[in-house]
């Protein structure tokens, strides 16, 4: 998904540069390239041709590995196509979409996914910011601190999920023995809580890493200036650091939101979707791979794709997410 988000983001910044080029510093390359407003010289033409040629291999690979499967899924989603009944394959237009969107399982899974996304991303943002500040400020043993903080992110999700599952297994798990009397993974609320806990534990370091890159963008002088201007540590954080870091925070949120919405491994291992803890990805998997219903499964995949695209669109267009440090974000 992030592959799709990048060109869209680039387009936005180029557009805005062209329309809001009032400042003297607006001369960014994107604008200078001009969009055929002035006739191109021979030299420019040759340069542009070379540019296309250099891009072509990468573009070709992208088309083969991403565009083709996406288009094929869309095509499948418009058909009645169940591998158990291959004879009944037929083009049925949007009927699959009606089926899925009127189904309560889909909406339950959608709700669960949204809940997991919102809660985990919010908690990760707070914890990740704290972790990033610690990693940024540590003077002694910086390497050890950073390595330790990144360990959860380095462990394979499925392996980590299994360790969580065993930890919460009544009788043998140390966490189950400590905190609960029943079997937490057999009840909906506690299952969801454990899934979210595993997600947060796993991906907070990633958030912290992205935020740390943002922290490095805050000039030391700015914080010194704020100190002499009379700001407390908290005011320096909220009034100087956060606004300057905003682009980096939005990028981190965007990445994590897109990721979180596709949550699968943890649920697969911890509950296998039992007790209505399925995410939309889980549901799509059950229909597509286990149920062999290519039509309905593809429909769900396309719907997930659309939701993720909408999330990316909202972030880029409404919040103005752009690459951290780009000149564009500064002028806003």
């Amino acid at each position, binding site marked *: 998904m992030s592959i799709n988000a990048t060109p869209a983001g680039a387009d936005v910044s180029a557009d805005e540069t062209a329309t809001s080029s*009032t*400042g*003297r*510093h607006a001369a960014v390359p994107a604008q200078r390239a001009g969009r055929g407003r002035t006739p191109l010289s021979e030299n420019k033409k040759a340069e542009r041709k070379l540019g296309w040629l250099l891009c072509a291999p990468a573009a070709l690979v992208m088309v083969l590995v991403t565009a083709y499967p996406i288009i094929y899924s869309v095509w499948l989603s418009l058909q009645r196509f169940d591998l158990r009944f291959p004879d009944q394959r037929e083009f049925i237009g949007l009927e699959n979409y009606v089926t899925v969107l009127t189904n309560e399982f889909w909406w339950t899974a959608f709700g669960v996914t949204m809940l997991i996304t919102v809660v985990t991303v919010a908690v990760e943002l707070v914890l990740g910011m704290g972790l990033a500040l610690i990693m940024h400020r540590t003077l002694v043993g910086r390497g050890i601190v950073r390595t330790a903080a990144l360990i959860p992110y380095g462990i394979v999700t499925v392996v980590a999920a299994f360790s969580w599952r065993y930890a919460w297994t009544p009788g043998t798990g140390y966490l189950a023995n400590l905190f609960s009397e029943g079997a937490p993974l057999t009840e909906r609320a506690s299952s969801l809580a454990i899934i979210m806990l595993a997600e947060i534990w796993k991906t907070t370091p990633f958030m912290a890493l992205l935020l740390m890159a943002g922290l490095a963008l805050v*000039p030391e*002088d*700015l914080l*010194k*200036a*704020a*100190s*002499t*201007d*009379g*700001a*407390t540590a908290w*005011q320096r954080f909220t*009034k*100087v650091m956060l*606004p*300057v870091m*905003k682009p980096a925070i939005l990028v981190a949120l965007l990445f994590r939101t897109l990721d979180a919405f596709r949550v699968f491994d943890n649920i697969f291992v911890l509950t296998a979707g039992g007790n209505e803890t399925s995410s939309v990805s889980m549901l799509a998997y059950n229909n597509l791979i286990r149920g062999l219903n290519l039509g309905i499964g593809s429909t769900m995949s396309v719907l997930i794709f659309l939701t993720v695209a909408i999330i990316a669109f909202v972030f880029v267009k409404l919040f103005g997410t752009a690459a951290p440090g780009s*000149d564009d974000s*500064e*002028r806003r």
Partner: protein
Amino acid sequence: MADIVLDKVSKKFPDGTVAVADVDLEIADGEFVILVGPSGCGMSTTLNMIAGLEDISSGELRIAGQRVNDKAPRDRDIAMVFQSYALYPNMTVRENMAFPLRLAKLDKETINRKVEEAAKVLELTALLDRKPANLSGGQRQRVAMGRAIVRQPKAFLMDEPLSNLDAKLRVQMRTVVSRLQKQLGTTTVYVTHDQTEAMTLGDRVVIMRGGAVQQVGPPQELYDHPRNLFVAGFIGSPSMNFLHAAVEDGKLRTALGDVPIGERVRRELEGADAPRELILGIRPEHFEDAELVDDDTRRRGMEFEAPVDIVESMGSDKYVYFTVEGERASAAELEELAADAGASDFTGAGASLVTRLSAESPVAEGQHRRVWFNLEKIHLFDPSNGRNLTLHEGRAAGALAD
């Protein structure tokens, strides 16, 4: 407004390096003091310690008579201007300038009035609603100044505020800073690498080297009566000429001929541990074309002849570079100065002599020319410690003084 006193202030970093060593400095209320020196000599660290951005390792810092060593920057009531301007990119010019006032919880009306006033003084009124990214370097610099003055703090601390501006703008802003400081009468400590800024701006200049204060005084005093080789070489453009001088038979043997010495210097050189080799320093303006010197003046100096290397006519006078034979003057201070100047524009330690002659002099390149120089303006330095031997009770008296 307040006075600032540094009492044996030192800064030692955890890795053992001493950035600032026992700095004693009393800055009077309303005074404009410049800290100047080569890069990395502890000036910015000193400034940061006054601001409270760095801890003081030892010694005491008093602002308005109060010990502030352990006070946070926000409780010291000082304003700082940074080389990078450090404007908040997300705020408009108005918000930037209002920031310290908002933190001080003043009411909206007062804030608006103060910001407008400061903007008027600095001619920023038309730019108040712009973001820093849409301002030129000079405008950003003025906003940074504006943010400092709105608060009417006890003192301004400026860390090379003009270094990022181009040469022309720097000269302009120099007068702005100077006028502003006189108008407001606020105690100001100003750090710079630029000796022109140091000479033109301050009431007093503090020359630092390797974390230690070399000399403190009004600009003219530092120029006329440098306490040591470092100060002599640092102040002045083009810088002072330094020549190797050997003490022999009560005379100084130099590349310019034998220089006679007076009673006082002779006494200095009589001791058993007195140096046998000296460094002789003369400023370019203390040379003159021998043809243009009247008899009365001639008696106060001596003459030599040397081949003319390059003539630079400045209109009002001529810079003439002579090639002189002889040993190069060498001392740790001179090497440090040469390194700081990038060695290119520092001619003091080279074999060529820079002189400033009257514009009427008919001197031409390739000629041999007789040149007179003033013995009363000569400085003699001990190469081992850089001390100025011609200095008597803080005044330089030349080589001939009795």
